[in-house]
């Protein structure tokens, strides 16, 4: 074959002679390799320490893998039992949580995003304070917000909506303010010089520019929130996660498998739908990686 002939060719030319001639390019000095070796060594040591700290052993892994194998076997065939209607309702609840949470958050975040943008309010203190405020909201996970809201409005999907709303409010506020900062100043100056107020400048100068970006970001977060809303029920905040946690707890593996398949199908459908909508809104294919 071609491969063998080419490698034979190299042997004929005498590899050692070539190595000697190009020794500078071929041999990397130790001092240049040292940082790489160091990073790899430290990284490996840390991983080994972690495994030791966790009391990791191969026996445990094999044991658990065996049990996991049994579980997977028990999952076939996926079957909802007599719960199908309950599951569908819960799935609807999940979608409602994601939808309301995302869009109300977007509406509330728009004015805050404008306040946090440097080119709208030129006050550094307002800018700094609003940014840190949004950062702190984002620093707390959706599930933790769900736990806090459950204390306020009780168990159920409403707490889930509020949890997604809160954590997305932080994210959107930041994203929107960045988009607004990147907007072109000239239309605003045009509106203001034609006698418009500052608010007019924002409405007619900035908003039309940033709207497509904002809509595509909101859609992307809607996709991601459908995923979040599926698990938010695990802590009791409504949606399909409640059933999922229960069935896993009761080792009803066929139902678990059915629920997971339902979630996968829904997520795929929502992704497809929202990429269609995004395509229609921004007139181009935006790439997103979750």
């Amino acid at each position, binding site marked *: 074959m071609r491969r063998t002939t080419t490698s034979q060719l190299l042997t004929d030319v005498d590899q050692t002679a070539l190595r000697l001639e190009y020794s500078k390019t071929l041999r990397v000095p130790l001092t240049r390799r040292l940082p790489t070796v160091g990073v790899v060594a430290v990284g490996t040591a840390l991983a080994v320490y972690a495994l030791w700290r966790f009391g990791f052993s191969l026996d445990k892994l094999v044991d658990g893998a065996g*049990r996991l194998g049994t579980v997977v076997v028990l999952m076939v065939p996926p079957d909802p039992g007599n719960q199908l209607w309950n599951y569908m309702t819960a799935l*609807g*609840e999940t979608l409602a949580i994601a939808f309301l949470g995302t869009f109300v958050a977007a509406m509330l975040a728009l004015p805050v995003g404008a306040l946090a943008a440097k080119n709208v309010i030129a006050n550094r203190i307002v800018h700094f304070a609003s940014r840190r405020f949004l950062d702190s909201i984002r620093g707390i996970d959706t599930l*933790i917000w769900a736990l806090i809201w459950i204390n306020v409005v009780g168990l159920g999907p409403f707490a889930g909506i509020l949890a997604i709303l809160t954590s997305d409010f932080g994210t959107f506020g930041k994203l929107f303010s960045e988009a607004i900062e990147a907007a072109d100043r000239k239309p605003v100056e045009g509106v203001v010089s034609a006698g418009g107020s500052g608010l007019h400048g924002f409405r007619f100068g900035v908003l039309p520019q940033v709207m497509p970006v904002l809509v595509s970001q909101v859609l992307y977060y809607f996709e991601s929130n459908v995923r979040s809303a599926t698990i938010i029920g695990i802590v009791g905040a409504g949606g399909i996660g409640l059933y999922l*946690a229960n069935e896993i707890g009761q080792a009803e593996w066929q139902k678990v498998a059915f629920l997971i398949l339902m979630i*996968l199908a829904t997520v795929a459908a929502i992704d497809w739908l929202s990429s269609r909508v995004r395509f229609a809104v921004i007139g181009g294919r935006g790439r997103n990686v979750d």
Partner: protein
Amino acid sequence: MLVLTLLSGRVGEVDLAKLWTGLPRFASYFYDILPRLRSETFIADLSEWFWNLDGWLALLLDTLLVAYVGTLAGAMAGFVLCFLASANLTRSAGVRFAARRALEFCRTVPEIVFALMFVYAFGFGPLPGVLAIAIHTAGALGKQFAEVVENVDMNPVEGMVASGANYGETIRFGVVPQVLSNFVSYSLLRFEINVRGATVLGFVGAGGIGKELISAIRQFYYADVSAILLIVIATVFLIDWLTELLRHRLLSLESGG
């Protein structure tokens, strides 16, 4: 839009009256979790607030290590799978299809669901957390890695093949030098995400600080909630800042040499 909003409001049991009566409770909740710090006994109050600091820091270290080992293992799995999933290196459509679907599955099932199942199979502790994060990371990074690999310059690859290199050698010398810095940058970003994820995995018993946090919230140990939240937020900020620093160093290294 309006119809959808009203419909989902109904399904989601939105109750504005409940929210209105609940809002003062929301505000007072934050007031309640604030510690009682008096200026005259400030140090004593502070140490009472963070009474279990050593224990929490140990749990936090667990959480960070879960995220670290999970990211490392997931990145390795993603590294292997990404070459199989990329169109320019794998000719067989069957292998490519299988690799892509496997990555998609790992990515789409939420990691807390994996964690719940692994807790059942492996018992309570950090191990199920590590595995859950590793699987999710493999799916997410495998996809991003494959996109990087599909955009490499194919000339070095063809050169390697032409000079008689096998598959492994082609990848090691033809592809990896082109993609390594991107891979590391994506992995660092994923580590950042996984630190947040690992905190929450503790909720279902998969090790780390999350277990402590959920029991503090459920049992209304108000001061503990704020203390743990503060530690977690501070850690997340610190990790974000450190990885960003590292990634900028990495990028400047790349453009410099």
